[in-house]
Every structure is written in C-alpha cells, then in structure tokens.
C-alpha cells in the first residue's frame, strides 16, 4: 500500500536551482548592494522561487487517474456518458 505524502516538496532540480541562485545573489551583493548585478541576482531568486512554488502546486493538483484519462479518454475507466 502506498502512502501519499501530505504536502509535495519542490522537485529536486528546481530546488537546487533556488538554493544556488540564493548563494550567487549573496555573493553578487557583497560590497555593492545597490548595483544592477545585485538586483538582477535577487530577481533571479524571486523568479526561481515562484517557479518552485508553481511546480509544487502542479504536484499537489495532480490526480493519477485524471492525468491518465486526459491522454486516453477512450479507455474503459475513462469513458464518460452524457445523457
């Protein structure tokens, strides 16, 4: 029997990107906090954090049956009958 995790964590690929970008941003901002490079680096962190959050949401919403049926609507278990 498989137990489903209660809250999905970020897919590892994206998760690594986020933590790498944070390290890079901290480096880029050492000494010159007002520079464009610093702002761009933290903007990248924001973008990746948002992508990570969306990836988590996608995992949360996914239902294995629904996913299968989207691609195979004609199979037995996916047929719908409308009167």
């Amino acid at each position, binding site marked *: 029997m498989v137990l489903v995790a209660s809250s999905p964590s970020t897919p590892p690929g994206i998760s690594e990107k986020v933590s790498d970008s944070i390290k890079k941003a901290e480096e880029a901002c050492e000494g010159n906090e007002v520079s*464009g490079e610093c702002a761009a680096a933290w903007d990248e962190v924001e973008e990746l954090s948002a992508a990570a959050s969306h*990836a988590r949401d996608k995992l949360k919403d996914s239902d294995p049956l629904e996913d299968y049926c989207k691609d195979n609507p004609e199979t037995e278990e996916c047929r719908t009958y409308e009167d």
Partner: protein
Amino acid sequence: MTTLTLCTPSSSSSSSSHLSCCISSSTTEDVRLGSPLLRRQFVFYTNWRKGRRGRGASCGISCSAEARTVVIGLAADSGCGKSTFMRRLTSVFGGAAEPPRGGNPESNTLLSDTTTVICLDDYHLLDREGRKEEGVTALDPRANNFDLMYEQVKALKAGVAVEKPIYNHVTGLLDPPELILPPNLLFIEGLHPMFDPRVRDLLDFSIYLDISDEVKFAWKTQRDVEERGHSLESIQASIEARKPDFDAYVDPQKQYADVVIEVLPTQLIPGDNERKVLRVRMVMKEGVKYFNPVYLFDEGSSVSWIPCGRKLSCSYPGIKFFYGPDTYFSHEVSALEMDGQFDRLDELMYVESHLNNLSTKYYGEATEQMLKHGDFPGSNNGTGLFQTIIGLKIRELYECIVAEKSVTPLEAAKVF
C-alpha cells in the same frame, strides 16, 4: 499565387477559439509553425459558433467578422496571487483554463472555451542570462519587448492568430513560439500590461493588484519557508533588491487601472503580525464604460457596516465593511473595503445580499462562485470576494461589448 485552405476545428482539440481560420499561403512551407509570415497572409474567418448567439454558421469565401476579442489586463508583482486571480476570473466564464495540450509543457498560456490567458513574461527581450549580463531585473522595461507585445495583442484583438514566444521559467530561456488563436476574451497578465501606452489603449479593462509591503513579505515567507536555502533574511533581501525597479516601473501603472485591489494588514487585530486576516480595498474608477462600481446601501454616500450582530453571528475578529467615494491619482473613484474573514457560508450569503451592482445573474451567484473555489487562498476574505466580483463585472462588460458590436453591420475581414 494564393490558394485557399479550409481548416476545420478538430473535435478532439480543446483550443480556445470558436473561430476557424482559413489561411491562404503561396506555398505550404509558409504555414508551418514558426513562420513569421502567418500574420501577413490573407485570413478569412468562418463562424462555427454553435448558434449560441443566434448566428448561423456560414462557410466559404465571403466572411463574417467575428465579434472582436475583448482584452483585459492584470498587473501585479511576482508572488502576489496573479495565478489564483486568473483562475477565479476565467472560472466565471465556465470551465477551467488549462495549459495548451500537446505543446511545450512549460507554456505559460492558459486556454478555456471562451478565454485565453497570456503571461507577459513571454515578451521578455532578454532571457535570464541576458538580464544577468546587463545587470537588469525583469521589472526593467529594457528587459521586455513592448513592440512585439503591442503588435501581437493588437493582432489578436483584430482576430488574427499569432506566433507568440514562450519564456521558460524553469530554464530561463526563450523557447520556440506557440500558435495563439484569437479568443473571445483575452487576459494579459504580468508585470507591465499597462506600461506601454499603445498596449494600454488596447485594453478594454484593466486591473492592478496592489499588495502592501507587510502582506507581500508574509506571503512570500509562506511560499518560500519550506524551500531549502531560503531564510527570512534572503526573502527580505530579495524583496528589497527588487523594490527600486518595482517602484519605478511597475507601481506607477496603478494610476491607469480601472480597478485597483489593495491588500493591506487588518485593522481589527491590534499588533497582528501573522497577516492571516486581511483588509482588502477595491478601488473602482468612476465613468468607465460598461463598468458600474459595486456599492453598499446608497450609491455615492459613505457607509460603514458591521454585518455581525443580532441577525448574523461571527467569530473573532468579525467582518467590517466600508464604502465611499474617494479620489485616486486625481480620478473619481468609489472604494469598497472589507476587513476580516468569512467563517461560514451564511456570512457570505448575508454579505452578498446587501451589496449592489454585483452583476450577478441570480441571487447567490457570487457566493456560489466563491464556494466553487473554496480551496483557493483568500477564499475566506476580501481577496477572494473582490476577485470573484471583478470576474462577474468583467462578464457584464464583455456581454455589453459583444452586444454593442452585433448591432453594427458586419464587415469583411481585413486583408494584410
């Protein structure tokens, strides 16, 4: 030499548009994906609408002009609930808007029967590497191709399909374009829908989601707290580093919006830090065509209302409404404000029954829409309520525009 090719909508496609376009091309190569010539070809339309608006289907060379695409703009910073807002808005028009099937899995576009949602990040001029090299954030206009944004939104509005680039948020690269067919309702959401005056003029309605700094910090903390590598300091640093560009390029757009939704800390709980209870203010511009601001009790007066009392019992901290006229960036506006949270269905119904100009089609429709998405964030406070109401107002605006269009005589589609 040009040849006419009829394309029929395939029954299995879940594409957004009722239009079927017949595209003529001098060679078959010109019609392949990625061709920049698509827009410059002859485009005729046949109307395969299922008679919903009482228009018969006609096919052939003589064409009926489609009711034009209504374009709505939504501006908000990253991590401010645009996705949730979009889901609520598109839901009012029926069906869930979903990413295009069979295309790039990282496509930001959403399609439903009547609506298409385009993410303006797709118009980034510089990809992530490019921005890093230039030392420029995505908030900076230099990172965005407003010319392309304008051309494509204009084309879609005129009923012409476009090949729109895709910005891949995971890789940070610009992916090959996807074909977007002109929908009945086009939503463009992102950081700069109202920045360029030409694009602004194309919008039939615009919304700005204005999240206060304290709430933004709380939401981003909630979003990122589980993320390895993030700490309160890094979240704060990211917000602060982006703030100059945000204040310079994104924030000023709110003066152009027809509706601004302000999300502020609650005033009901002294010393609150959690930001779970929110005060939400919907600032509605007066004099916008087909948009009648929502009001409480008596339009144009100021009303302070606490619904909890003898008829309705609420738990702490309760609900407080305020409605009144105001000025916003020297425009006349009406502001409706809700502070607090809904705990129960009957509170929601009670409040709905006392609001006017909601553009609902039947009693309880707003509550029903809220319940449909009870699991969305903000479903128990003003953010969910006002976003739902705006969805209903947009529906009314859309129906009025379409009705107005059907009165004027039909013209043949333009030839490029």
